[in-house]
């Protein structure tokens, strides 16, 4: 129990962050059918803004986090307007390639802003632990779970219940019909990008909490959202949550037990676990656990 439970909590913590990143990709995919590869850059910029507002400017932590999310929402909406809007009506493959371009540009910007430093986001959790007898879990893991799932829940509720959420879902089902009902489809795209970038900013902050801090290369962590969306199904928010948690826990358990039980696999084996899950998932269920199977015309 002393190993299993903390490993589980750590896995759920990191997994919920993956889920958050995956949801941020799903939101854009559902609105525009474009897989947004620029998410790692949005995430790292979000961490940068959090660090800027909290550590450098000295805003209280919650205020700084919200401010960073708002700032990134603006960046996301701007990116959509400048880079993606001209591509409406073009093949989605072309649009996905443009997001790779956006990734490169924004990563360069982030590198410039962050430089060689390691940023701290100024979170209040640090290495504090909650002790239950002999079992100790990190507060930060609990914070990750609560904040990620809370944010995802809020997005889900917005999409499900609000008028604007309904319009966004209508847009994702049939753009032309949505237009004919008076839905401003372009605004829905902007909104999806803004929401997605704000979620990515929150994820970036969560990645930067605890002992680590954030470097420019931390952006690569966001790549783990790819196995998550593939396992969960690219158009499903529930799928992203379940898959995020599964992959986080798998990674964490591998880290806890693999050195003991399978040392011949070498050090740091846990890092590739998400990608193993990705490969297996593609072989067994290519549209994911909760995704919509694609109808193929032969």
């Amino acid at each position: 129990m002393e190993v299993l439970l903390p490993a589980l909590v750590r896995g759920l913590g990191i997994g919920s962050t993956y889920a958050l990143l995956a949801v941020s990709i799903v939101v854009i995919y559902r609105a525009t059918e474009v897989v947004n590869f620029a998410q790692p850059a949005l995430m790292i910029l979000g961490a940068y803004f959090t660090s800027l507002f909290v550590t450098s400017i000295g805003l209280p932590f919650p205020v700084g986090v919200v401010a960073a999310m708002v700032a990134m929402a603006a960046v996301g909406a701007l990116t959509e307007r400048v880079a993606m809007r001209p591509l409406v009506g073009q093949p989605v493959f072309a649009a996905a390639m443009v997001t790779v371009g956006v990734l490169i540009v924004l990563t360069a910007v982030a590198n410039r802003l962050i430089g060689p430093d390691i940023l701290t986001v100024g979170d209040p959790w640090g290495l504090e632990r909650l002790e239950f007898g002999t079992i100790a879990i990190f507060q930060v893991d609990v914070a990750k779970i609560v904040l990620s799932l809370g944010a995802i829940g809020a997005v889900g509720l917005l999409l499900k219940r609000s008028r604007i959420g309904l319009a966004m879902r209508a847009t994702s089902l049939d753009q032309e019909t949505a237009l004919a009902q008076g839905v401003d489809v372009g605004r829905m795209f902007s909104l999806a990008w803004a929401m997605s970038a704000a979620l990515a900013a929150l994820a970036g902050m969560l990645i930067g909490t605890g002992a680590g801090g954030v470097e420019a290369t931390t952006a690569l962590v966001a790549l783990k959202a790819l196995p998550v969306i593939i396992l969960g199904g690219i158009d499903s928010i529930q799928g992203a949550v379940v898959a995020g948690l599964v992959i986080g826990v798998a990674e964490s358990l591998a880290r806890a037990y693999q050195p003991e039980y399978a040392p011949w696999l070498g050090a740091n084996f846990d890092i590739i676990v998400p990608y193993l899950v990705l490969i297996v998932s593609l072989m067994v269920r290519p549209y994911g656990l909760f995704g919509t199977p694609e109808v193929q015309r032969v």
Partner: protein
Amino acid sequence: MLVVENLEVVYEDVILVLKGVSIEVPDGSIVALLGANGAGKTTVLRAITGLLDVHRGAITKGTVRLDGDPIDGLDAPAIVRAGVGQVMEGRRIFTEFSVEENLRVGGHLAPRGVVAERLERILELFPVLAERRKQIAGYLSGGEQQMLAIGRALMAEPRLLILDEPSLGLAPLVVQQIRDLIVRINEEGTSVLLVEQNANMALSIADHGYILETGKIVMDKPAAVLREDEDVREFYLGLREEGAGSMRDVKHYKRRKRWLS
């Protein structure tokens, strides 16, 4: 009153689809726009409702005016806001949404306070939909889906309702229901522009009719006159004078020739 003047529409910069179409929909009337497949009926509607650019089309000449104000430069949401509602061809309901959600999307531009009230009114107008309020719209029958599409358009309380082939793929009895419904909507003060292949149904309720052929209006007459017109009876109503059988092909050719000249 909707006035379309000398409309010319080009798709993909090269395909000329409408060659100077002019139609009018006076307030409170039902106007039918008839024509065979490919005549350009749907294109006329897209030009009116601002959906051309989705299909890479553009208005190259002519104007569309609603009560004197040009609307041909506006985007689709602005045209809905100006009071033009439409039911697209093939119903195009959101199949994964519930009936109520479909209707709510139709009320997207309505002031927040009135949506619930309008929803109740629409459900009253369509009792079948009220019964299936929470059901997934994709499982409704074709006729119910058509009613849902009409109800959804009415949620915006349009002054002009444009219907693109509402009888498409429906049983004769359901077509009659839809027809009665259109009359009722019209009686409540909404002008209707009805695009149909089912000329019989359209002309039976319309005040005025236009016949569109390969991008041109070839006939522009009161519906009562069109119903009696020999050519319309033969080509669009499927009624033929006795003894004309053997000469059919010749006459067909001659008539087309005369219409287009």
